[in-house]
């Protein structure tokens, strides 16, 4: 397995128009990183009715894994990682438009810091405010939240730094870590399985970083019905982790 070999996993329930933009931006980012040939882009069609058009997905340079029944985010990612094993996995949401330099920056960070297990990415909303620059934890029921979410982007320094967690909307993970933890936990209905994975990563002593060099675009929670599933996931997450993470000052 070449050390830079990459499988990008993009679950999608419908949303073909934005998915195609996501794939186009991803292609440019892989090209800029010199990884186009060594990468597999896997679109997981999570029970779209009617199914995503196979030829259009293939024309965008992606493999298609079709699920007829709706699966959780964890199951969708785990299935694709099993099908296309690689040295690194990039979990990517279908409503993220990567900057050309983002993948190279993320891989560069993992290369620079060998003990790092996961690397996240800084992302903004279409209006330029921060969508994600790292996940922090509040006291009590507050739990995990995005640092400076919806705040002007200039408030967050452009310095890569360590966090307890980063979002799974754009998350680069080393293969051996993925194997050791058995992928994402499939008991989460939808949401917070990424934060669970990060906390489990830290429990085995692997730090997590967020790249701040480029600002990709993330529309966030575009899939219909997505937000409803969050409630069950949050309850499960808090029952497992409350009191076991560090409250960020």
């Amino acid at each position, binding site marked *: 397995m070449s050390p830079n070999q990459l499988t990008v996993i993009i679950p999608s329930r419908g949303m073909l128009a934005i998915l195609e933009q996501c794939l186009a931006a991803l292609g440019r980012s892989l090209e800029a990183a010199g990884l186009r040939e060594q990468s597999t882009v896997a679109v997981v069609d999570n029970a779209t009715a*009617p199914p995503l*058009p196979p*030829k259009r997905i293939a024309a965008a340079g992606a493999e298609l894994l079709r*699920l007829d029944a709706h699966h959780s985010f964890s199951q969708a990612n785990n299935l694709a990682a099993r099908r296309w094993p690689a040295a690194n996995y990039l979990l990517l949401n279908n409503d993220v438009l990567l900057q050309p330099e983002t993948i190279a920056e993320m891989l560069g960070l993992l290369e620079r810091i060998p003990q790092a297990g996961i690397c996240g990415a800084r992302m903004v909303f279409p209006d330029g405010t921060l969508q994600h620059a790292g996940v922090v934890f509040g006291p009590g029921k507050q739990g995990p939240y995005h640092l400076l979410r919806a705040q002007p982007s200039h408030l967050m320094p452009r310095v890569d730094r360590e966090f307890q967690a980063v979002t799974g909307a754009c998350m680069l993970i080393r293969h051996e870590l993925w194997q050791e933890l058995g992928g994402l936990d499939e008991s989460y209905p939808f949401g917070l399985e990424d934060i669970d994975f990060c906390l489990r990563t830290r429990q085995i002593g692997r730090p997590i970083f967020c790249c701040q060099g480029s600002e990709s675009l993330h529309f966030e929670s575009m899939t219909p019905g997505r937000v409803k599933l969050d409630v069950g996931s949050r309850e499960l997450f808090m029952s497992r982790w409350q009191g076991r993470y560090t409250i960020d000052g």
Partner: protein
Amino acid sequence: MPKPKITGIVHTRDSASTLEAALASLAWVDELMVVDMQSGDDSVAIAQRHGAVVHQVEIAPRIDGVRNRFTSLASGDWVLVLDSDEYLSDDAPELVQSLIADKGGSYDAFALPRYNYLGDQVMVGGGRHPDYQIRLFKKGMVLWPDAHHTLPLVTSGPGRLWEVHSSRGPHIHHRNYRDLRQLITRQLDYALTDLYPSDPASFDFAAYLARAHQQMAMRSDAETDGDLSQAMALVMAWDAVMRGLIHWDTLEPRPPLNMLDGFPRAAAQMPRWEIRLRRFLGRHLALKHLLRAVRARLRALLPKRG
């Protein structure tokens, strides 16, 4: 309880271009059989590469009559039948197994919904989805009559057939046509090679025109499938007219075509309620089976003629 054994059966005839996907999607079954109708291409080699047991069969005009012979050779408790231009999704193994575990005790056969692709587009309007197909059943519980467009028979009765809801269960994915040109080529080929009644007295061109009206009304659903649905409706209407002309051309002596007279009569022969009923029944296969059983009972009650 031990897991029931599943036999997958795929029928082929010069199917090399689509067979790979069909067999790859059945890699998880306990036994894989390919029933080949004298293919001249690489179908058999592909089947062997996938570890299938290949049975050769003589060329027959219809696959339906052949199916029964080979389902009886299956060693599985359940049989899953695919055509060579169909495939299952990547989560089919778990969906099929949980379907059998949940409902297999109460039902002998499952009607699976089917997605039909024309090129890259799934056609769902005009009753083309869920397009139920009886393809998963306990061995020996389904029989196919040797005729075109007839429903397979669930031997234990229509009450033992379960329609799998399209939002939850496995689908059959059917790559019907590569593009519209392939649809036109195939329809013309079928029309030219089909058998037509030879009695000139029974020929009625208006009946073909009526079928053309019906195809236009049933298959055109632009709100759901866009222009492609209208194109498909036009092809199928054209097919009906072509069949009328081909039929007429085979007759000796040729009866009057009565084209001008045929148009108004054809419009009256295809009432809207019948089109609506056909669309409705197209979506509810189990109901269709039930109606067929009721009709058979009623017929049995009627005094026999002669």
